[in-house]
């Protein structure tokens, strides 16, 4: 039977994620060392898991309110004020979602009308483009550059703005490059946003994982930007809670209340058990964040130093848990490099092109792995690089 006439055209037009391909190859092989996964290797801190278990023991197994439990929203509000200096009203300006991804999707579907243009910096997380397309919008790609340490510049944003531009997605700290935006860079962007009267969807899911001297600055903390920004964050990366599926969106009441309608009809409410655990994480989890962050930092330093030494140069990434080395020394395309690497040395990394065409010449290497694992993988990568010479 021919299903194509039944299937939605936009859905059929979406390409499957390019990260998958190498994972599928890796799955077929023995003794593969992977540096390709984009989630923490830590398990959720025990005291957080315990609160989830406790809530189940007490039989708290019902739906939560659509927006999420009030106590959780209050804790999110406290947390965001404490760590990032921006105040949100827990009654009206916060919605708890199924991971940060749902919040991104809600936001795009709430804001975008057919034909609206959405500015998407790349390389970046793979979901922004398809989500924009499904919302009826037109993705306009802005390529960030290695010579700018993969930061987005105000000029590049302005160059891509047309009368149809409605929204800029700001994916920093960045997956896959590890790039971060400092306050001065954000202030430059803010001027353009203000001048052209557009909104910003700031995906700050890696906000807690920054390694330079300066902590993450939320775009909502830039003067005049809170009213123009929807911040997306969540528990997955900061508290190693990926499987709990819990995130949230923060923003102006007028936007959040519209997003809430979609959330209400499509999802109803975020997982109840996860919300109890998340309250504990926000109350007593600051030291867990620090413990994991300093562990990532050690791995990051090792991996950057070793890759540069072998000629796979990378700028020093200051956020998330990825390095984005240049593989141009090999003379291969990103795909070729990653494919040969996995067949020759059984090491899986992700070609930069999975995150946008401008990722050509680069690869994403994740360091959410133990030092022992990273050390072994680096030795294999070095053998591979030397064999290619």
């Amino acid at each position: 039977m021919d299903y194509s006439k039944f299937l939605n055209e936009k859905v059929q037009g979406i390409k499957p994620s390019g990260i998958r391909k190498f994972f599928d190859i890796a799955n077929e092989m023995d003794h593969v060392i992977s540096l390709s996964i984009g989630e923490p290797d830590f398990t959720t801190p025990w005291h957080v898991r315990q609160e989830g278990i406790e809530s189940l023991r007490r039989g708290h197994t019902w739906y939560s309110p659509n927006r999420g439990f009030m106590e959780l929203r209050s804790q999110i509000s406290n947390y965001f004020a404490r760590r990032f200096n921006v105040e949100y009203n827990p009654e009206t300006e916060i919605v708890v979602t199924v991971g940060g991804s749902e919040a991104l999707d809600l936001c795009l579907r709430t804001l975008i009308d057919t034909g609206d243009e959405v500015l998407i910096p790349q390389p970046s997380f793979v979901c922004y483009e398809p989500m924009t397309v499904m919302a009826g919008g037109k993705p306009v790609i802005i390529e960030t550059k290695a010579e700018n340490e993969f930061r987005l510049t105000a000029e590049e944003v302005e160059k891509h703005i047309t009368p149809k531009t409605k929204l800029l997605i700001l994916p920093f700290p960045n997956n896959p490059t590890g790039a971060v935006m400092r306050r001065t860079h954000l202030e430059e962007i803010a001027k353009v946003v203000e001048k052209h009267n557009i909104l910003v969807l700031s995906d700050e899911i890696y906000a807690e994982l920054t390694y330079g001297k300066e902590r993450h600055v939320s775009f909502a903390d830039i003067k005049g930007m809170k009213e123009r920004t929807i911040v997306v964050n969540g528990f997955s990366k900061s508290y190693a809670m990926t499987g709990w599926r819990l995130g949230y969106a923060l923003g102006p009441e007028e936007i959040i209340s519209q997003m809430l309608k979609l959330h209400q009809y499509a999802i109803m409410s975020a997982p109840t058990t996860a919300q109890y655990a998340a309250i504990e994480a926000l109350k007593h989890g600051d030291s867990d964040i620090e413990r994991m962050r300093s562990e990532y930092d050690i791995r990051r330093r090792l991996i950057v130093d070793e890759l540069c030494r072998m000629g796979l140069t990378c700028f020093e990434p200051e956020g998330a848990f990825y390095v984005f080395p240049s593989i141009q020394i090999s003379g291969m395309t990103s795909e070729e490099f990653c494919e040969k690497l996995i067949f020759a040395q059984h090491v899986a990394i992700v070609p930069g092109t999975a995150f946008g065409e401008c990722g050509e010449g680069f690869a994403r290497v994740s360091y959410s792995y133990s030092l022992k694992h990273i050390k072994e993988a680096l030795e294999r990568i070095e053998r591979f690089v030397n064999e290619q010479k």
Partner: protein
Amino acid sequence: MDKLLELINQNSEFTTAQLAAMLGESEESITNKIKNYKEKGVIKGYKALIDWDKVPDSGVKAIIELKVTPKPETGFDDIAKIVMSYDNVENVYLAASSRYDLVATVKGETIQEIAEFVSKRLSTLDAVIGTATNFVLTQYKEGGVVFYDEDDEDEQRSLIL
């Protein structure tokens, strides 16, 4: 605690360059620190972690609890020194327990050999009031390294995007 010690305790195979990179210090500074730790006796040496369960005929291991009468002057130290003087004794600890005072781990070719060692060499010591021998059946974890479950660490993580 010094992060350097934590790292080499985890894995002594890191090169000086790698340690320097990880800690954001110069190689010279790492070399000096390690030299210093060795001189002060903080770092006693480096050895391999071997999963003896995988080595044929590698013998058996037991954890021996010793109830001891302490000496007026030297407490438990004298008797601990005697116990640790045997080559087949791998570790000796003084424990805060109501059941026993010293704990030793002992290696031997056979169960009989260890039983004999305990009854002839340890039980007969004047200060020793009683012993309990616990034979090790499976070594799950040693020196912070998991031996039992060697599945790839990320096997349970799935790549979803």
